[in-house]
């Protein structure tokens, strides 16, 4: 279980997270929605220790990640996988080497077993047989799927998705949404995605939380959020320019 308590973070004196509280249950698929620049990716980076908060705590199964040393964090990160907005594939490595990297660094598997595991993970994201391709030769959707294969290479308990469908055409976006949902069911992982794409949020979420003004202002199931009476949530999910949320 992930528990976030009173998380605060600011950049150049501008507060982004202002005492954020959130709990994510094991096996749950939580989607955090909110406007661009509201701090969704910042929140995600705190969950895996890429950023340190000014105050507040992030507990992973009771262990406070914010007070861990680098070595402890690296150990904890083996339980996580993260899919980046731009996929963040290592462009000096082939697709197969990208997926194999965590296995080569953290396990004593033989080369044969690593190749087998890489092929299995690429199969899960429906990209069999592209081990030798270079990341630069892949489309945006394929890169995201390779990023997902790399994220699940170590069979993580938690997978974090940063804007999983941004920059993809609607058909590819839907394919990625299905993939995320299927993987979550197949592998029983806890997943946390941040997005402003409501179609994606409805497809992959068990629970949706809305981040606004540095805090979670609403959390509920997709059905509950559709019926929500909070004017800020209504404005965001209907995509209306007029309402309490303004550009300023």
């Amino acid at each position: 279980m992930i528990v976030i308590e009173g998380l605060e973070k600011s950049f150049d004196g501008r507060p982004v997270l202002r005492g954020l509280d959130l709990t994510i249950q094991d096996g749950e698929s939580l989607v955090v929605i909110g406007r661009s620049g509201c701090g969704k990716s910042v929140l995600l980076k705190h969950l895996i220790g890429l950023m340190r908060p000014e105050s507040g705590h992030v507990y992973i199964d009771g262990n406070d990640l914010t007070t861990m040393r680098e070595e402890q964090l690296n150990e904890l990160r083996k339980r996580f996988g993260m899919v980046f907005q731009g996929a963040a594939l290592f462009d000096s490595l082939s697709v197969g080497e990208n997926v194999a990297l965590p296995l080569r660094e953290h396990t004593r598997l033989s080369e044969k077993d690593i190749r087998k595991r890489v092929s299995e993970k690429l199969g899960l994201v429906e990209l069999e047989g592209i081990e030798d391709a270079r990341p630069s030769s892949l489309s945006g959707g394929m890169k995201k799927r390779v990023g997902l294969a790399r994220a699940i290479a170590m069979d993580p308990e938690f997978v974090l998705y940063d804007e999983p469908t941004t920059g993809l055409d609607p058909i590819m976006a839907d394919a990625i949404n299905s993939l995320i949902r299927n993987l979550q069911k197949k592998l029983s992982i806890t997943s946390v995605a941040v997005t402003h794409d409501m179609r994606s949020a409805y497809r992959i979420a068990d629970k949706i939380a809305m981040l606004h003004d540095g805090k979670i202002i609403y959390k509920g199931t997709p059905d509950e959020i559709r019926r929500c009476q909070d004017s800020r949530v209504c404005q965001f999910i209907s995509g209306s320019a007029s309402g309490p949320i303004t550009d300023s």
Partner: protein
Amino acid sequence: MNSNQATLGAHAIGQKVVGGIEQVGSASLFFLRVVRAVPGFWKKSHLIFEQMVAIGVESMPLVFVTSIFTGGVAAVQAAYQFQDYVPMRYLGSVIGKSVVIELGPVLTALVVAGRVGASIAAELGTMRVTEQIDALETIGISPIRFLAVPRLLAGMIMLPLITVFSDFLAIGGAYVVAILSLDVATNTFMEGLRLFFHLRDVLGGLVKSLFFGVVITMMGCYFGFNAEGGAEGVGKATTRAVVSSCLLILILDYMLASLLFRVIFV
């Protein structure tokens, strides 16, 4: 200029100075983190080997051309200054000393700083802005250990080796020019070369090049790791890496020369 403008000017200069001091502190802390990650890294020799090829072997053509012409021009300039005052049998001595002590290590380092420092900063800067460095961290791999340590070790190994290569080529270039256009006989040049040759001079030059290897790779890594924004940020990081490497090489050259040739090798 009124007092308001003077205050603003002083404030701006003050901010620049504080920013510069912060940068030096931050770069020093980065270097310490890299050094702390070195023990036990020899097990990852394939990563060091890859960087040795990128830093050393791929710099050879550039060093080849630079060294040959540096040696040639050194011979021409020395002969010009010797006219009527110094016998030409000392040409080899002057060339040998100036190449192994100064020209070989410093010019090689400056050329490599331009090529390798820029390449490291651009590669790591791109990895930073495309979140590849974050991705390494999320899979539990220390980017310092995986990216910076192999570059540092490869730089420390390869700079002295390229410098030896450069020393030979520069002396060779000077010899060819001396024979073909300065009417100096082979025996005269070689005798001069042997006359004041001391192994400590070569050693001093190689010690300097080892430190230059540290400076070039660390400046490339530091500015690459701290690149911000997109293509513009990577461009700035690359420029800063090359400029700071070149400046530090020249400053360090003076300091090491003072230490080595006025204290240690006296």
